[in-house]
């Protein structure tokens, strides 16, 4: 899994790593049981503070996305959402509201926005399916 950081995004570096790994898990780019890069080589490669990577991993662990097996490294968890359904919905609502506000400012009308949402979900589903196919092909 190849991660990157962008100092111009305004998002704290550790959160950028958290978001990328969550996105990779959602799209199937990272599959349950697969290992994540270990902290030292990843920190060296990205040239970021080791503590930043450690903070990202412990955040992902507390969110239930990954688990650390002593001596074996970090893995993506099988069923990785440890949060209750209503909590998960609440978290998602915040993100949706932001997108709606943004759509308003960019003058994207309601129907177009909903259609766009459907399209994006299809694209992501497609990605997940093709990642799954690769797995079968292997």
């Amino acid at each position, binding site marked *: 899994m190849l991660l990157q950081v962008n100092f*111009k995004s305004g998002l*704290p570096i550790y959160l950028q790593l958290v978001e990328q790994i969550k996105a990779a898990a959602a799209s199937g780019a990272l599959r349950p049981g697969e290992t994540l890069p270990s902290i030292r080589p990843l920190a060296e490669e990205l*040239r970021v*503070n080791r*503590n930043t990577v450690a903070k990202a991993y412990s955040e992902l662990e507390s969110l239930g996305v990954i688990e650390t097996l002593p001596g074996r490294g970090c893995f993506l968890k099988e069923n990785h959402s440890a949060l209750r359904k209503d909590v998960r919905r609440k978290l998602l609502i915040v993100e949706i509201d932001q997108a709606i506000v943004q759509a308003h400012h960019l003058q994207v009308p309601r129907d177009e926005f909903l259609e766009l949402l459907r399209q994006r979900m299809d694209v992501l589903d497609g990605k997940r399916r093709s990642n799954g196919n690769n797995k079968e092909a292997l």
Partner: protein
Amino acid sequence: MTSTAPAIQIENLSYTYGRNEAVHDLSLTVQPGRCYGLFGRNGAGKTTTMKCLLNLLRPQSGKVRVFGLDPTKHEVEVKRLLSYVPDQVAFYPWMTVRETLDYLASFRPQWNRKIEQELFDRFGLDPAQRTASLSKGQRTQVALIAAICPETDLLVLDEPTSGLDPIVRREFIQTVIGAYQQGIPGKRTILVSTHLITEFEGLIDEFTIIDRGRVVLTQDSDHARQSYQKIRARFAQAPPDLDFKTALRVRRDGRELELIANGSGPQLMDLLREHNPESLSSESLTLEEIFVATLKS
């Protein structure tokens, strides 16, 4: 020495060379385990500040403490707790690399041979080579090995990568992250002074910008990048004449506007949005851009 003492504490430090005031009323605190950047232009007072930590200079006024100890009174203890890579590295020219490291190791209570070998391999250094014939890059690599192997709680780097080629610079920073930071988390503190800010960006937790010996800005890196924004807007006609008093800088060209904001980014975005720009975007400033914006405004 107490375990709760900051790694470095400087209070109201001033230092004057003759009539030239190098450092004026400077204060900063570095907590253990942090990587702290000291940014400034050439001659801003970075090296003078660091020399006061190492007792190479005695503060003329103010207080300097390293893990709670006064370097002027406890020089030996302080030097045992820290290692230092200066901008100009000098070794005895008749010694080989091996002899130089053995000589330096003899002053240290501990020396990690495993890390030493790892770094020799990484840099491809020849232990039998005389230090007189080392390149500037290799000299810095030997100095870095000598700073990392004693496994001190504090690593002080004074302009360590200036004058080095980009590959050696990268390796230097990766070595600091990989080999030095692999110690007990929360116990490996770094103070680095540099004007090559971009390369150290990912490493630095917190920083102080100094100019003409005075503190201009002290901030947490993530927080600074959230607060400092560059906003770009383009309008269909000439941009409206708006109140941009909260912006640090405003550039106009034809139908385009570029604002630099510190903290007021969201309000300025809202203000611009009300006037229906054709396009509107914002991005964070990097630490180097923050450095430039701070010193130019």
